[in-house]
């Protein structure tokens, strides 16, 4: 399909390795918890975090047990008194300072993120870290303007926020959670994901560097049990979770009947809808970034491609040609487009669902691509001949696997796009402005992108319908999750 240059005998323009230096990061052999402004040992067993691209052990990380979580929540409670009464413009100074330090240390953050997570350095460098800084800058601006948030004249913070974040965007999710919480005057106990704790602990250093008052931000590392202990702690006022729908439901059950407010940002199975009048070359790019960005470890990934039948064949040929140019490999190489799958468990899940797709009769295709021999890897994969009844059209795979369906009319596109338990995001590709408005109105998804995909901005609220969760993060709407109306 793709011209490889071999037919004409012209030499192939072969990009030499261009690895980003990892000398800038200093990974310690072991890490403790970050409580009350200090790094402390945990009481639980320690666990290892590994580099998913090589399976090398990076560090031992302390697991927080019930006593550790309690200590962290108490520290946050103590800090809340001072932090919540501090004038907004003073809180803003801390947030601005953090934002600037993030920018100053951006290379360090990006390299460590790629090492611990497996994502390509070009994404951590150009997407994760810049948007992370943007969230702190944006919310710093809100800190002294909360009376304009739409919640009345004197909105008040909620108290201690228990925040649990996933492994797909460790720094970005941390920023989405911490920046608004702090701007609104709350204090935070955050649990990073078990497989990607290192950048949160680097961020803890940034909090120290910014002289953030002790206890305003605390990190407890660990797995599911630690997270469950944290959200169930009786002195927590707010729970914010991003992750799987199953865990989100468990959290919702555990806090039912309490006064805790919750924001849940869960799974998705977004439809990326391409009409026959779409700007086709850009649509192909949008399809590729929609599903292969961050190895498809994206809750709002465009994992269901809905192609108008009249252009399906042509679009698939173009998509396959484009997929053949994707560069899979070393996450630290600046030319890598697709990095490593985050963990052995996730790789097993992706493999299992891909096999189910084949068993159910969908046609599987991947470009020829050589995968590294160690580490967790999955080639960019597309399934054609998929129908709504296939499991790969319904379940979130959370990997570089695209399911392609076709439709005939706009109404059918809407029907198929909405026929999912999820409702986080959707994409629409057409040159017709009126059709964009029609589709955006009909699609039940928290975000609808038109002629683009996976665009994030701190001013734009993000969140889902149905099993994709509730509450919004970002923008003025996101502040509502961390404020109550003042007396």
């Amino acid at each position, binding site marked *: *399909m*793709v*011209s*490889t*240059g071999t*037919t*004409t005998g*012209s*030499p*192939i*323009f*072969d*990009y*030499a*390795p*261009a690895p980003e230096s990892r000398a800038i990061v200093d990974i310690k052999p072991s890490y403790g918890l970050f409580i009350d402004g200090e790094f402390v040992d945990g009481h639980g067993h320690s666990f290892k975090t590994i580099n998913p691209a090589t399976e090398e052990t990076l560090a031992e990380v302390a697991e927080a047990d019930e006593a550790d979580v309690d200590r962290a929540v108490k520290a946050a409670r103590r800090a809340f008194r001072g932090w919540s009464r501090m004038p907004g413009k003073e809180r803003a100074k801390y947030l601005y300072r953090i934002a600037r330090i993030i920018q100053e240390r951006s290379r360090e953050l990006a390299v460590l993120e790629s090492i611990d997570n497996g994502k390509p350095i*070009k994404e951590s460098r*150009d997407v994760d870290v810049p948007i992370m800084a943007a969230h702190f800058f944006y919310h710093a601006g809100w800190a002294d303007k909360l009376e304009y948030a739409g919640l009345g004249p004197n909105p008040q913070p909620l108290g201690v926020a228990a925040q649990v974040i996933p492994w797909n965007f460790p720094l970005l999710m941390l920023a989405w959670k911490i920046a608004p919480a702090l701007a609104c005057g709350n204090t935070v106990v955050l649990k990073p994901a078990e497989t990607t704790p290192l950048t949160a602990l680097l961020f803890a250093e940034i909090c120290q560097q910014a002289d953030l008052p002790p206890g305003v931000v605390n990190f407890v590392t660990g797995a599911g049990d630690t997270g469950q202990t944290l959200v169930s702690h009786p002195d927590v006022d707010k729970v914010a979770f991003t992750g799987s729908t199953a865990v989100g439901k468990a959290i919702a059950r555990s806090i039912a009947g309490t006064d805790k407010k919750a924001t849940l940002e869960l799974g998705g199975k977004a439809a990326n809808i391409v009409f026959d*009048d*779409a*700007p*086709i*070359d*850009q649509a192909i*790019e*949008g399809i590729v970034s929609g599903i292969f960005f961050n190895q498809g470890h994206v809750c709002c990934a465009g994992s269901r491609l809905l192609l108008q039948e009249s252009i399906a064949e042509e679009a698939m*040929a173009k998509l396959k040609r484009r997929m053949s*140019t994707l560069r899979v490999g070393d996450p630290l190489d*600046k*030319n890598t487009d697709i990095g490593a799958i985050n963990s052995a468990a996730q790789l097993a899940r992706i493999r299992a669902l891909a096999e189910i797709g084949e068993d159910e009769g969908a046609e599987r295709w991947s470009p020829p691509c050589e995968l590294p021999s160690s580490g967790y890897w999955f080639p960019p994969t597309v399934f054609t001949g998929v129908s709504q009844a296939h499991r790969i059209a319904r379940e979130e795979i959370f990997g570089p696997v695209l399911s392609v369906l076709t439709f005939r009319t706009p109404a059918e596109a809407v029907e198929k796009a909405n026929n999912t338990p999820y409702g986080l995001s959707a994409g629409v590709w057409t*040159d017709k402005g009126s059709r964009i408005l029609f589709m955006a109105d009909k699609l039940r998804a928290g975000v609808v992108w038109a*002629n*683009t995909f996976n665009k994030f901005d701190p001013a734009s609220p993000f969140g889902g319908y149905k099993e994709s969760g509730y509450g919004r993060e970002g923008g003025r709407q996101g502040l509502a999750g961390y404020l109550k109306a003042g007396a």
Partner: protein
Amino acid sequence: MSATASTQSSEGLGAYADVTASEASLRRFLHGLPGVDQVGAEARAAALGTRSIKTTAKAYALDLAISMVDLTTLEGQDTPGKVRALANKALRPDPSDPSCPSAAAVCVYGDLVGDVKEIVGDRVNVAAVATAFPSGRAALDVKLADTRDAVEAGADEIDMVIDRGAFLAGHYLQVFEEIVAVKEACRRPDGSHAHLKVIFETGELQTYDNVRRASWLAMLAGSDFIKTSTGKVQPAATLPVTLVMLEAVRDFREATGVQIGVKPAGGIRTAKDAIKYLVMVNEITGPDWLTPDWFRFGASTLLNDLLMQRTKMATGRYSGPDYFTLD
């Protein structure tokens, strides 16, 4: 260099005979091409620009870029002496290093073709701008005479400009027929014909939709190369404009089996920029276009920066501008 037919059913140019049969059918066809989303095209070009080309890949790219330069001077003040000097530079860009490739061509006004030809012979091509360059504002027979003159003087390649006024007024068939006529004027007595490059002046066409339409129009009319700019209008060549044109030649080969070359011209001054273009060619059309037969840079100052970077790759240090020849 054979144009390898693609896998899609290619019925050749014949299938498009109906398209150019009338003003109405040509307009319908050009307006029926898929649109270009400006934001998306620019984002794609910028993303390709972040590729990191180092060591062996950089050395390969620098030599390739040198061999693709159409070394250009298009000034009222050009003299036989000036263009001869330029011709010598094109032959031996780095006189101290015989392993340095020659440039692809020397590009001058038609009246100076003979002076260049005397120096370069058949070792480097001579390209002449024609058809009332750069504005294209003249009667058709004047443009054709201009073209014939240059071909008779020995030009290997003709760089013509399209009538942008006619294009923007929607008179596509007029533009089409003019290209067909110029192509005919490129024919030599022995039946061969000078290579025809068609300049769109994309800075005047403005939209990427127009660039895509102009590309298809010129390819259907028989151009051998499509070229962004005269260098006299800003903006001249840009990465996104070249992206759209590369997509057009890629799609055209898939549809017809005919391969067309691309030449960004004007505004490409650094080796770093040139390498971004080569990355784009590599990833959009594939390596079939990565030869001087199918991709050119219209440039003058670019060559010295390429030479400077090339010397740096070889010696490990930068030399000052006085170590590279002026012309």
